[in-house]
């Protein structure tokens, strides 16, 4: 038959192949865009639609032994250099920092010029409009009118409906992704700023000279991500990279402040928090926003590590999300790009994660690649002169999404570990993660905040 052209049987064979190829491209594209489901069938879609290569799992891929997680003193994070290094050494580091910042500005060093420096500093503006339970981060209504004052019933909904509504509101206020998990008290700081965080059977949160009290009825945490700009981060460790970090923190402050007001307006308690009440990453991990990678930051399927993570604690009952697995833990075992690139040597080069923290700045109870966070902080002050972020920039998951090849790589890494070493090496060979010229950043014509807010969403 072949000498008369293509046979019917062969034509069908070819057609099947063609249809497969033709179908794969749009199918993968649609899946990657986290296609939201149409609500025409009246079903309440409280969960975000994940790409097909992301699996929901019962426990986070980073092993956590909750029985060994003790509430951490918020005053002992790596930022507390006097606590870890002593006051004299901390003062010396601070003095060096002040001197080097001024020198860099006077020398007009690319990425450290006055305009670069102020891009970084001014980015904090909104974030710093308050601290724990003050200003933007108030635990009680700021200006919203509560149902009680209006004389109406408070918001009533099923947990699924409430989750859907909260997630929609959070996205409207600037969240990139939103997940809901239960409040695990172990992840709330024992104390910070000289005040203890306590849980009591009370109706409203309150604060005294000694303590800040979270009502025990607040059993839910809304974990959210705010995107950072890869165009900024690619200039790391320059201050231009820090510019997107501080701006994202300000957007995070706006997000948690407004979402908390929204929840209070519905008649419920809301406690907004960036990193003050406790770390946000554990909640994001349980809420299925991503996995924790080698450099102990959240790596999301949509944006890689290019996010800041925040949360709102509330008593509004909502449907919970589950942790996710898309191969990050296994990928990080092979890929050590962040650790190799870290100028301070703070990141672990071990292949396997460990249960042993490297210092008092880390809380035990999790199996991870513990970092020497104080070494990292010292480099911030004496080398990067801002927030460094090299580990974020070089991570192979830090990519824009202008080519489907990135989705192909992520989907393959999520499915099999076979090619992880190849992908990591190719990432280097292709030049990803190399520092971009900070001076050229000022010439870019970027979208607002330097991010693509349509990523990961269909109805954009």
């Amino acid at each position: 038959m072949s000498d008369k052209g293509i046979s019917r049987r062969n034509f069908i064979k070819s057609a099947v192949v063609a249809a497969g190829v033709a179908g794969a491209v749009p199918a993968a594209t649609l899946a990657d865009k986290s296609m939201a489901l149409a609500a025409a069938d009246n079903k309440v879609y409280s969960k975000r639609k994940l790409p097909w290569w992301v699996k929901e799992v019962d426990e986070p891929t980073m092993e956590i032994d909750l029985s060994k997680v003790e509430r951490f003193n918020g005053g002992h994070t790596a930022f507390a250099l006097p606590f870890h290094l002593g006051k004299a050494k901390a003062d010396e580091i601070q003095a060096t920092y002040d001197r080097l910042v001024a020198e860099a500005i006077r020398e007009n060093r690319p990425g450290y010029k006055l305009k670069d420096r102020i891009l970084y500093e001014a980015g904090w503006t909104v974030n710093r409009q308050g601290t724990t339970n003050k200003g933007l981060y108030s635990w009680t209504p700021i200006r919203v009118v509560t149902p009680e004052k209006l004389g109406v019933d408070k918001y009533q909904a099923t947990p699924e409906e409430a989750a859907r509504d909260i997630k929609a509101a959070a996205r409207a206020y600037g969240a990139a992704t939103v997940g809901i998990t239960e409040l695990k008290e172990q992840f709330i700081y024992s104390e910070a700023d000289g005040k203890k965080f306590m849980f009591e059977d009370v109706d409203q949160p309150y604060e005294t000279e000694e303590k800040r009290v979270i009502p025990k009825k607040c059993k839910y945490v809304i974990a959210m991500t705010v995107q950072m700009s890869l165009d900024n981060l690619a200039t790391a460790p320059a201050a231009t990279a820090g510019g997107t970090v501080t701006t994202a923190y300000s957007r995070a402050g706006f997000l948690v402040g407004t979402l908390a007001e929204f929840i209070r307006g519905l008649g419920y308690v809301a406690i907004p928090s960036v990193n003050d009440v406790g770390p946000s990453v554990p909640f994001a991990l349980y809420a299925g926003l991503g996995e924790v990678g080698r450099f102990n930051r959240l790596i999301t399927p949509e944006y890689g590590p290019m996010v800041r993570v925040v949360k709102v604690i509330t008593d509004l009952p909502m449907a919970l999300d589950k942790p996710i697995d898309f191969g990050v833990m296994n990928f990080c075992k092979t890929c050590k790009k962040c650790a190799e690139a870290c100028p301070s040597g703070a990141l672990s080069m071990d292949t396997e994660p460990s249960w042993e923290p490297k210092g008092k700045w880390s809380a035990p109870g999790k199996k991870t690649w513990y970092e020497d966070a104080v070494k990292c902080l010292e480099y911030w002050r004496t080398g990067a002169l801002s927030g460094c972020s090299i580990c974020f920039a070089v991570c192979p998951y830090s990519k824009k999404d202008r080519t489907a090849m990135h989705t192909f790589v992520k989907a393959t890494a999520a499915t099999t570990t076979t090619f992880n070493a190849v992908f990591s090496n190719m990432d280097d060979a292709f030049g990803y993660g190399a520092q971009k010229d900070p001076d050229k950043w000022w010439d870019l014509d970027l979208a607002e905040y330097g991010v693509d807010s349509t990523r990961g969403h269909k109805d954009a």
Partner: protein
Amino acid sequence: MWFVLGALVAAACIFLWRWAKSNNKILSWLDWLLALMVTGGVLMTFETVVGSIAEGEPRAAGLSFLLLGGVTIVLAILLWRRITGTGRKAQKAGLSQ
């Protein structure tokens, strides 16, 4: 970009069909499969190169062009030799006229 890619696919199909017709060539299923792979290769190369340039990653664009484009060119040469009958195996097998 998807419009351009669609136009490229359509142009490739029309070109192959017209070329085969005008030269009185009879294509086997393997020729069509190869043609499909070449078209897919061109599309993937185009999408990756254009995407990488848009991302500001010229090195990634160049290497994608070399790797994906290289494989596509090899496949295209194979296809060409088969359908023009210049390939030794093709001549032996008599798959082309």
